[in-house]
Structures are given as structure tokens and as C-alpha cells.
């Protein structure tokens, strides 16, 4: 039996119409169907945060979001942050402050931080550490990630 449904939503400003099993993960839609591989497949259980994307303004784990709940949604991925070769101020700060090392966690952290800063979330160290509770980094110890976010917030 084919349970596929047709879904319509926006990804990075572009309308998407696709047929998919309703419980397909947004993560697979992005990586396999749309070939947007900036969003990383980490734990697949909503713990590591590597697949964080922004849906309707909120940071969510793409691995825990079924496509059936995206009807009409506005999805943004890490590919949307830069304007061609011009990095967003947050990306530029990560580059300058050494906020990225192996890079596996970076797309997810950029998206979580983008959602947080857009809605005017606090930028002291404690607030940023709490905001990062859903993103694991095994390289940096988070210090440089937090410095990167604070530099980007200060530049605004």
C-alpha cells in the first residue's frame, strides 16, 4: 500500500511540492530529496542538535520532525544563512573566533543561534550556554562558540 501524501511548504524561501511518506523525517527530505546536505545527520534521536533547522522561526531537530507536520511551513537551513559568497555576521564570527573545528556540529549550532538571536534572546554566557543545551560539540569545549555568538551579537 502506498501511503505517500503530497506536501507543500517552503524551504529557504522556495516553494516545495513533493510526494513522500507522511512520517518521513524532514532530515531525509532535506538531505536526500532536496540535496541540501549542510544539515547533518548525527544521532537521529533529537539529542546532538546537528540537524537543527528553523521551522516557522523556531529551532527544531529535523530528525524528529515528520513531513506531515510541515504543511505550509517555512523551513530554513544553514544554506540560507549566506548570501552567495557573503557569510552572515554569525558565520563570519565563527570563522574569526575559531568557533568551528571539525564542523559536524556547526550547521546545527549556527541555526540554533540564529533563531535565538533573531528573537532577541539574551547573550550573556549563561544564557548562551543554556541556549546550546540541545547542541553537542566534541571539539571546542564551547568557549569559542560562545565567543563567536557574542561577537556577532555585539556587531549588530
Amino acid at each position, binding site marked *: *500500500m*502506498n*501511503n*505517500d*501524501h503530497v506536501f507543500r511548504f517552503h524551504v529557504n524561501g522556495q516553494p516545495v511540492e513533493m510526494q513522500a*511518506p*507522511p*512520517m*518521513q*523525517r524532514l532530515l531525509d527530505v532535506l538531505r536526500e530529496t532536496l540535496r541540501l546536505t549542510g544539515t547533518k545527520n548525527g544521532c*537521529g*534521536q*533529537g*539529542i546532538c*542538535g546537528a540537524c*537543527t533547522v528553523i521551522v516557522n522561526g*523556531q*529551532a*527544531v*531537530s529535523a*530528525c*524528529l*520532525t*515528520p513531513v*506531515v*507536520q510541515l*504543511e505550509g511551513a517555512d523551513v530554513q537551513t544553514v544554506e540560507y544563512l549566506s548570501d552567495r559568497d557573503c557569510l552572515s555576521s554569525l558565520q563570519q564570527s565563527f570563522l574569526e573566533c575559531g568557533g568551528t573545528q571539525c564542523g559536524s556540529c556547526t550547521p546545527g549550532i549556527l541555526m*540554533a543561534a540564529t533563531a*535565538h538571536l533573531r528573537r532577541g534572546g539574551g547573550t550573556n554566557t549563561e544564557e548562551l550556554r*543554556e*541556549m*546550546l*543545551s*540541545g*547542541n*553537542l560539540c566534541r571539539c571546542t569545549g564551547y568557549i569559542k562558540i560562545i565567543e563567536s555568538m557574542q561577537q556577532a551579537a555585539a556587531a549588530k
Partner: protein
Amino acid sequence: MPTNISDHHVFTPRDVTEALQFMALHRDEGWRPLAGGSEVMAQIYGNRAAATGWINLAQLRDQLAGIHEDGTHEDGIHDDGWVRIGALTTLTELRRSAVLQAICPLIRRAAAVTGGVQRQNRATVGGRIVSASPAGETLPVWLALDAEVELSSRDATRCVAYRQFLQEPRQTAIAPDELLTAIMIPIRDRPRQRLLFRKVASRAAGAIGKMVFTAIAGLDAAGHYRDLRLAFGGMGPRPLRACEAEQLLEGHAPSDALGAQAADQLSAELTPIDDLRSTADYRLRTARNLAGAFIAGHIGEQHS
């Protein structure tokens, strides 16, 4: 990856009435509600899903999300003095609610350590209650607050004390044709209170707790415990209240001796187990130390 994601089918009702109609007609076919999806998706993609038919509640948010003061019970018996939290309210919405913060800051503390921000943006109050994880962070808080759950079916709505709603591990008293529509928090005249919420885990938020302890202690004019509530997660097959300890300590003033008495009573009352996250011994020691320090008056925040 799950064996076959195409085996999973979804019905998306437009409103609560349509959802309850569908649940009544298909009550024996094993359909389960899909709220924020964080628990269900981890189960499906971990090949341990409890169902293959899902009732997607995404379009019911207008009706079932939100926090309302002076909420009334659907049963008409309880008329006022309740805050109604819609079942599809997210943990992020719990955290940001000024109404709930004024009633009991423990709700915000528990929601803030239930997974990371990404999970809190999707996971719902109702989903957490129905999935009934023995270590669910918010669950001991609902127990401590004497909350009730509102269960709706096509033919009736009933309210059940949350304490009675919890059954065996991950099992609740919900019927197959019932939808959890709200949790109701009683607002009482509060005396001076001392509160505590503590989750003990390998990471503050993004790891399931070894154990959870929350306490609400009313203190009368003489400084004696009144209406003491001690609730635990991860210390038994389901979240629980330490009722015998509560009764034993009621009416006494905080002291080190009373704290020691509390700890010993908890050793008799709690039955934690060894599992992959912790040991029975560690859990019991932690519970004894935290509850003992709380009852002695050394830890906790004032609230009035």
C-alpha cells in the same frame, strides 16, 4: 532507519470534534495521537514504535494549546480556581508563561531541562504525560501540584487526578478513544512556601535523568511544614509521591534530625532499580541526600 517508513499512515483531523469522531470509530485499530512528534519519531526511527497509525494533531493547536487562568473543568463540578494548560502547549510555551511562573516556578525549571531548546520547541505537555516516561522531568511537578488531566472522547469528558492516571511503566489510564485535552492545576491560597526542583543526569538538559526530585513545602506561621509534597522521577516504575514520608514530616519544623528521619523513611518507601543510566544504590543515596537537605531546610527557594 525503520524497516519501512511507508508502513506508517497518518490521519490529520481539522479540529477536536473530527479527531474524537475518528478515535471513536477506529478505537480498536491501534491508532495513536501524534503531538509534537519528538517521542514518536525517535521510537519509529529506533524501530520501537507502538503503532503504525498516527492521528496528527497539528491542526488542533488553536483549540488545544495555551495557558488559561480561571480555567473551568469540563465536568462542571470544579468551577474555578484552576489554571488550564492545553495538551498541545509546548515546553517552550511553559517556560515563557508568566502565569505559570507566578503560580509555581518549578514548572519552568522542569521544562528548561527537558531536552534541548529544539525538543522544547516541539514537545508538548500532553505528549510528555501520555508517553509517561518514568524519568520525565515535568511529571513529578504535576504530581506535586495535585494536577488533574482532562480526557475527552466523542461521548464524554472526564477529569482524573494525575496520581491515579499513572499506571505501570509508560502506561496510563487513557482509553483508546480518549484524547488528553488539558492538564488542570489547582490554585490554592498559598502559605509561605519553599520549593526545589533537581534533575540528576549526565548532562543538565540533553540527557534523560538518573533521577528527578521536586518538593513543595508550605510553612505555617510557626515555621512548621504544612501541605508538604515530595515527588520523584526515576525512583520506581512511574513518577511517584512519597506519601508516607509526607505524612510523617507534616507539622514538624525543619531540622537536621528531621532531615535524617526523612532520608530513612525514603529508604523504606522508594524502590529504584539498576539500569543503563544509574544504579539503585546511587539513586537512593541521591534521593536521601536531596530530600534530607531539603527537609532540614538547607536547600530550596522561597516562594510566596
